[in-house]
């Protein structure tokens, strides 16, 4: 196996993790990972050294963005949301985090996940998202305060029900 293949192979588990959190749906996530791998293999000749891992994250992030655009053009497919809600529901510990992620704009979600789940630096995220570092930082700040609002907002609702 070539070094290039080896680098791709070791990245697969992390790509699956990122895709799962990004889509909150196991099958959609693996579809995107597979698509990412196929594209990476096909573009081997375009890849001149550099950070394979960051490059794979870039492909995956873009593919997911494309997928969401396609979905938004086809409202009939939005029932996928039902599955997402179920996925986020009864997990102890992470009970609301999946739904909180659901509420975020795609670029904010991807920035936050790349930093806290995948451990990329701000500079790497800026490259993946193709934006200046300042934009990455404001996406992170907005993502975090929105999640906080969402998680905090859940409690009074629960209290009222009781």
């Amino acid at each position, binding site marked *: 196996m070539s070094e290039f293949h080896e680098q*791709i192979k070791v990245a697969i*588990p992390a790509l699956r993790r990122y895709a799962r959190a990004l889509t909150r749906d196991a099958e959609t996530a*693996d579809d995107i990972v597979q698509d990412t791998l196929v594209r990476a293999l096909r573009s081997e000749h375009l890849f001149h050294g550099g950070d394979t891992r960051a490059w794979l994250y870039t492909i995956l992030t873009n593919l997911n963005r494309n997928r969401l655009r396609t979905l938004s053009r086809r409202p009939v497919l939005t029932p996928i949301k039902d*599955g997402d809600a179920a996925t986020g529901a009864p997990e102890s510990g992470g009970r609301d*985090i999946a739904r909180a992620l659901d509420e975020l704009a795609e670029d904010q979600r991807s920035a936050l996940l790349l930093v806290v789940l995948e451990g990329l630096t701000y500079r790497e995220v800026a490259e993946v998202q193709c934006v200046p570092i300042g934009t990455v930082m404001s996406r992170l700040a907005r993502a975090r305060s929105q999640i906080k609002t969402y998680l905090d907002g859940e409690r009074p609702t629960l209290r009222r029900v009781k």
Partner: protein
Amino acid sequence: MNDRDQIVSEDEINAYVDGELPADRRTVVEAWLATHPDDAAKVAAWRKQAELIRARYGAVAHETPPQRFNLNRLTRRRSGAIVAAVAAIVAAFVIGGVVGWTARSVEAARPSDLTRFTADALDAYRLYVVEVRHPVEVTGDQRPHLDEWLSKRVGSPLRAPELDKIGLKLVGGRLLPGPTGATAFFMYETPSGERFTLYCGRTSDRDTALRYTTGEQNAAYYWVDGDLAYVLSGPAERDKLREIARAAYEEIDRRTPPLGG
């Protein structure tokens, strides 16, 4: 001391949490946090969020990636007949879209218990099967308590079938919301750690045939016994799943007193 240098911005608080600050600013931020409880609370909240995200999705990276990610296989397909592959992908999308559309309009009209139970059961399977620390609420060694509790909540006597003879150990169970109300969810495990789940709730469906549904990686058998619908879910290996479904079906059937008897 120059106060202006010591003012800490929102971005710096984020960068502090993410370990992106140079050492000198880190010291400044730490001093700031000691006297600014609101910002200290933010740091704690941002860390907690990161923990929740890692707790929720971190385990995915420890799963063995499915065979379809085998790079040699993906490469072979690529170097084989690209045109054919592209055509197949396009066709899959077109067919998928059409089937999705059609299936949706049919199901929107009247989703059957088969559809609803199977979809919910597969969701629950996918959600919990990857769970390392909390796959169940009540563990399998408390079987009598588990059966009693879930029977009471579901509103019909039910028991987790004994599947030890086909090599499946009961991990335990939990209560879940389902299409018709409270639903029991049992998880089983093979010695090698492969997991299967049995989802069980009340139904008015009287069609008792064993039905098979398959997705990309997971599949399910659905059947009805008395006033309960059962869905056995697992990896998409039809024969294996069928063997387990049959064993569970027979175990349950053997113990269910005949209706009206």
